Every structure is written in structure tokens, then in C-alpha cells.
């Protein structure tokens, strides 16, 4: 073989091999199949009612049919623009079962009721439900999503997979599993053994909260003869204790464990880098943040956000936020006793659980 050709062939083959990894790159550069900017949600502000609002918009086209069904007391079925099948109920009796039986039992169907809706027990609703009035669930039922214009009541051991929004009150009986977003414009009430992730309402009651209410109001006047320390921002390396009944005027940043003993009061915010233990009857006027575990209560009153980066346990009688100044309580894992009230958001990123009071 001509040596020149051999060298040229060698250069060509080596060049080809070097270019080979660039082929997908060149194809992508030319084809621009994934060249759009990363998706940043501009409109959705993380609003818990986002899905409920979207659903309301989605079913807007069914309103005239629903109105007609309500006026005539009839039931109608059909298909939405995207092929979704629906049932519209116009009578406030037990027509739901019948309407569903008329459909193929295994075929999922969107349910829209212009009136109060009573769902049968041990049923599974794999499509969204709209109730124009009250919604009364049956025991051991499974729901995908519910939008109720009135109160929504889930019976014992029911499950919600995506979301519920109640314009009225939302109540979940013992042992319910609420795996999505739960919101109400008035009140969310959870009973023992319920599990939850994200909830929002002006008032969230765990169990029968009123009977356990002992927490002192945040911002009440400081009793005389109480020991007090004052600092705009007390930065402390290592563990720290706030003594029983002590008043701290200012903010605490503790780079260790923090123990606030019973009856103490912090006129400011509190942060601990390690575990935080808040005893009985403590009040904090600002936020409460622990980079690890937090144990809160009983009968504490916290004004600002409560954040634990690992686990949070809230004991009976504790109140977070107020009706006027709602707040957020958040941790990956939350255990909350019956008798706790949160005004605003209660958000367990991984798992929240209501512990029955002995």
C-alpha cells in the first residue's frame, strides 16, 4: 500500500473515532430537541388550592348541564372535550350509587353533583368528585380528589390520594389517610390515627381541640418578678437552656441543643442547630426553627413559623399562629397529638400522623 494513503487513512480513522462522541452532540445542536429553557412555574405560587381551582375551571363547561339536572331532578351522563366521561347528579338523594351502577362499574367516571352528595361506603372513586353542596363520604372509601362547595366529611378509614378542597369545613374521621393536599376556607378537623401531608385552612383542629385549650395568648403582658435576659440576637455556641418562667427579650440562635423549660417566654424568634425541646406552657412571639428534631408542648403558643428539619412532635393544647396571623408548621415527619390547633398550614413533607390522646 502507498504509505501516503496509509497515513491519510490512519488520520481519517483516528479523526473519525475522535469525532464519534460528538455525533449526538452535533445532532442535538442542530436539531434543538431539548433547547427550551428549564420549566420555571411563573404563575403558580405554590398555592395549595391550585388543583381545586384548576378543576373548577375544567368543569366550568358542565355548569349549564348541572343547573338543568338540579332544576329537573335528573341525572345526565356524557363525555367532556378531552374524552373524560362524567355523571351529573341533580337530586339530593341516594342517586349516586344508582348512577354509578348504571355505568360500567370498573369504568372511572367524573362525578359532578349540583346538590349534597352522599357517597356509599367501601367505594373507590378513581376520578375527581365535585359536590355543589355538602359531601358526606362513606366508610373505608378511596377518593382521588374532591371539591366541595359546602362541608366535606370523610368517614372512618377513608383515603384521599390527591387533594380535597372544602369551601365549608373539612372533617376526617378516625384512621383516614390524606395523602395529598387538604384545604378548607373555614376549618380542617382531623381525628385520631389520621395521616396527612399538606393541609391549609384558617383553622386546623387536631381532634377535639377546644377541650384542651390552655395555651396562653402570645403577646400577653410579662408577669412581674420573672427572670429575664435581653439581647437583639443572642448567638450562643453549644447547648443552651431557658429556665422555667424566664423571659427572653430578643432572638435566640443556639448552635447546639436548646431546652426551653416550662412557662418560659421568648419575645422574639428561636433557632437551634441541634435538637430543640420546648416544655409545657412556653410562648414564643416569633418563629421556632430547629435544624434537627423538635418537641413542642404541651400547651405552648407559637406566633411565627415552626420548622423542624427532621422530626416534629406537637403535644396537646399547643397553638401555632392565630386566626389573625396564620402561620406554617412544617417538618419531614410530624406527630401531632389530639388537642392541637394550627392556624394556617400544617405540612409534613414525608408523613404526618395524628396521635390519639390517652
Amino acid at each position, binding site marked *: 500500500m502507498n504509505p501516503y494513503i496509509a497515513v491519510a487513512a490512519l488520520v481519517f480513522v483516528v479523526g473519525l473515532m475522535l469525532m464519534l462522541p460528538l455525533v449526538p452532540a452535533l445532532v442535538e*445542536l442542530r436539531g*434543538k430537541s*431539548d433547547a427550551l429553557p428549564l420549566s420555571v412555574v411563573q404563575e403558580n405560587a405554590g*398555592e395549595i388550592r391550585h388543583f381545586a381551582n384548576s378543576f373548577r375551571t375544567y368543569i366550568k363547561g358542565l355548569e349549564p348541564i348541572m343547573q338543568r339536572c338540579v332544576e329537573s331532578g335528573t341525572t345526565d351522563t356524557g363525555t367532556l372535550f378531552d374524552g373524560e366521561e362524567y355523571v351529573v347528579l341533580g337530586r339530593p338523594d341516594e342517586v349516586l350509587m344508582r348512577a354509578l351502577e348504571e355505568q360500567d362499574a370498573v369504568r372511572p367516571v367524573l362525578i359532578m353533583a349540583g346538590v349534597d352528595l352522599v357517597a356509599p361506603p367501601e367505594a373507590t372513586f378513581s376520578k375527581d368528585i365535585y359536590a355543589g353542596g355538602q359531601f358526606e363520604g362513606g366508610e373505608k372509601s378511596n377518593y382521588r380528589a374532591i371539591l366541595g362547595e359546602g362541608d366535606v366529611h370523610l368517614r372512618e378509614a377513608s383515603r384521599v390520594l390527591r387533594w380535597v378542597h372544602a369551601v365549608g369545613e373539612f372533617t376526617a374521621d378516625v384512621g383516614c389517610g390524606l395523602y395529598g393536599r387538604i384545604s378548607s376556607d373555614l376549618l380542617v378537623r382531623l381525628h385520631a390515627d389520621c395521616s396527612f401531608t399538606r393541609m391549609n385552612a384558617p383553622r386546623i383542629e387536631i381532634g377535639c381541640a377546644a377541650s384542651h385549650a390552655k395555651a396562653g395568648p402570645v403577646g400577653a403582658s410579662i408577669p412581674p418578678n420573672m427572670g429575664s435576659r435581653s439581647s437583639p440576637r443572642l448567638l450562643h455556641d453549644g447547648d443552651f437552656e431557658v429556665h422555667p418562667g424566664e423571659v427572653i427579650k430578643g432572638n435566640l440562635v443556639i448552635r447546639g441543643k436548646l431546652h426551653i423549660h416550662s412557662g418560659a417566654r421568648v419575645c422574639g424568634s428561636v433557632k437551634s442547630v441541634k435538637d430543640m425541646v420546648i416544655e409545657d406552657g412556653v410562648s414564643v412571639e416569633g418563629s421556632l426553627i430547629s435544624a434537627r428534631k423538635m418537641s413542642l408542648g404541651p400547651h405552648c403558643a407559637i406566633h411565627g413559623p415552626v420548622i423542624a428539619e427532621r422530626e416534629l412532635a406537637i403535644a396537646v393544647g399547643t397553638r401555632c399562629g392565630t386566626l389573625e396571623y396564620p402561620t*406554617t408548621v412544617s417538618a419531614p415527619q410530624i406527630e401531632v397529638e389530639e388537642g392541637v390547633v394550627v392556624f394556617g398550614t400544617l405540612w409534613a413533607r414525608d408523613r404526618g400522623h395524628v396521635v390519639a390522646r390517652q
Partner: protein
Amino acid sequence: MQAKLLLQVRHDHAEPAFRLWLCEVIYVLYAIVFVICAYTARHYFFTLNRLFGFQRHPYIDIDTADWPPVTVLVAAHNEEKVIANVLSALMTVKYPEDKMLVVPVNDRSTDRTREIINEFVERFPGRIRPFHRTSGKGGKAAALKDAMELVDTEVILIFDADYIPGAGLIKQLVAPFFDLEVGGVMGRVVPLNAGTNLLTRLLDLERSGGYQVDQQARMNLRLVPQHGGTVAGVRLSALREIGGWNENSLTEDTDLTYRLLLNGWKTAYQNRSECYEEVPENWPVRIKQIMRWAKGHNQAMVTYSLRLLLGKHRATVRERIDGTLLLGVYVMAPITLIGWALALGVFYQGVAPLHGVIALLSLTAYAALGNLAAFFEIAAASRLDGTRKRICLLPFLILGFAVSIFSVSRAAVSQVSDLVTGAEFHWDKTERFRKVL
């Protein structure tokens, strides 16, 4: 003598003085290799943490609160192409209107920026208070410093004029300030013009790696997330405590990060608080931008690295180490070039360090792992972002790195020569590419 044992110098005729000099060169080379390995390990550590470690997003769930009053500073110098976008976006964010004041900091603009801002002031009475600056020292830090006379809220947010905040962004950036340890907050920057050309696509990948992996890993590991000076916030009391904006700094954000850290404040990174920005669309603009960043960063390195590493302050050991490594990021470019030159030099002098075999094995190991560290990081970031095909462009990043390494080295050299000649730093604004509205 011991050093000589490590060498296998084949030039038997070489002068003893030259051989001694070679020994010293080898030690410098070892030091450079050690530092490069440290950065390589850091890349892998951060990436593996992002893929498999515990992810910290402690403040992102705060969606309901008694929100504090906030001032949003929008830094603008000849921003007629983009200023309307950012102001429009800020007027539609979901934050209590009576608690948010927007202050466009119009820094000596000579285009229509002033006029556009004034139009918005009229359209949204009481919500925008403009700060028109007509004289004074140039640069963002100097402009922000002067604008502080209009700020009386504890929480300050800062946006550059080419950013477009989403509806929930203000709340997300304010939320970390409920933590009294937090002095600064940084959100994530996402290129809006990612698909324009090869450069923007490469910058998109780089940004992805920098934020999705680097910044979040630092947040996870409680290291030193960097304040970026835009899509960012600072606590007024912390800013006052550290002496306000440093107008002599070319990168006021890096400067702020370290002064906060040295004074016992933390910077929180919010990976899910994303905001669109515009990245440079041509290489000269990109080179200018990265040279300014390099100079500012090196300036901060000279000022703070020793104090951070060895000084008496409240930073933890891990923050001291990470903070120092972060300060050295831009100086690694000239160091790497010097390393290459030295390695080639000693090779052609017939020197095989560590008896050759170990050197060969090390070289092979580094070629297999070390060179891939940054690529691995960016690939992991793309995966975390859920993107599909843009990862194919990864081989082209070598082009971006080549441009960066020479630009940053050039910046370092010019910085040293400026120091010798006494020339002053000057601040170059990044050119915008959006069409005028």
C-alpha cells in the same frame, strides 16, 4: 536529598544545580496536583450528595406567615431592553402589596431606563419608589449602597434588571429570613435564552451544574452557599453589622457571602426558588463577564481566605474549608495552566516523578476519573432537572472550559499587573440581548 531519591533523572550530564531546580519544580507540581485532586474530590462529593444524600429545603414549605415588609432593589444601568419585564413581573407577584416596595436603582443610565421606570411609577402609585442615581462611583455595589437611603425594611431582596421573577418567588426568598441565623438568601438562576446558540446552551448546562448540584450540595452539607447578588436577599441588620455594601468590590455578592460568614451569619440557598435570567449570547460578552467575576472573586480571595481559614470567628471547620476552596475556584485556572506547563517541562527534561510507574498509574486514574468530575456534575444536574437531550451537548463543554480557563487566567494576570501598576478596577456591565419593548 530525599527529593532527589524520588526522581529518576535520565539526563546524566545535567548540572547538579539544574537537577535541584527540577526537584523544586516537581514539588510545585505535586502541590498543584494535590490541589487539583482536592477540587476533583469536591466535585464528586457534591454530586454524590445531590444524588444520594439528604436534601435540605427547610424553608420552602413556609407558604403561610405574617409576612414581613420587604424592599426589592432592582439594579439597572442602561437596561431599557429589560427593565419593563422585571417591573411588570414584580407588580404581579403574590406578596401583600402593602408590605412590598420596589426600588429600581437606576444607576446613571443614559438610555430610556429612567423614562420606563417613571412610567411604571405612575401606573402603580405607591408601589414603586425609584432611585435615580446621576453621579457617584460606578458599579452595582456603589449604586446599591447609595440606594440604601430608601430602605427601611429588615428584609431586602435584590434582582438584576434582566431577571423575571415568578409569582411565588418573593415569598420563597423572604421565608428563610424567619430563621434568625440567616443573613443572606440565594435563589436559583435559570437561563431564559438557553436555546439561542451553542454558547447559551453551554451556559445553561453550566448554570444547571452550579446551582442544581454545587449550591444545593453546599446547602445540604451546611457549607457555604454563595450569595449571587441577584435573585437574592439580605437582612438589613446583618448588612449593617458587616458594614454595608462594599463599593470597592467587583463582585459584591461574593464579598457579601464572606463578610456574612465571618460575622456569624449564614447564607441559605433555595434551589426551588427559580428565576429566569438572560445569559450572554456571544463569546466576547461572556469572556468579559467571566473575567469580571474572576477578578472580583480573586479580590475576595486575597481579602478573606486567610481570615476565613485561620481567623477567630464563628464559622465551622467545614465552612472554613469549603469557603476557602470556593474562594480559590477562579485562581485554579492559572494554577492548572502552570501545572500543564510544568508537567510538559519536566517530561521533556526526561523526568519521571515517583519512579514513573506510580506517575503513570496516577495519570491513568486521573484521566479516568479526575477529568470527568465536572462533566459528571453537570450530567447529574441535567438528570436532576429532568431534561433529556441537552445532556448530549456535554462534550462541547470542553470548549466552554477552554475559553474560561484562558479568560480567567488572563483576568488573573491583568489583576496582578493592575496591582503592580496601580491601575484601578473598573466595572463592566454585561450586555443585554433582549429586544426593546
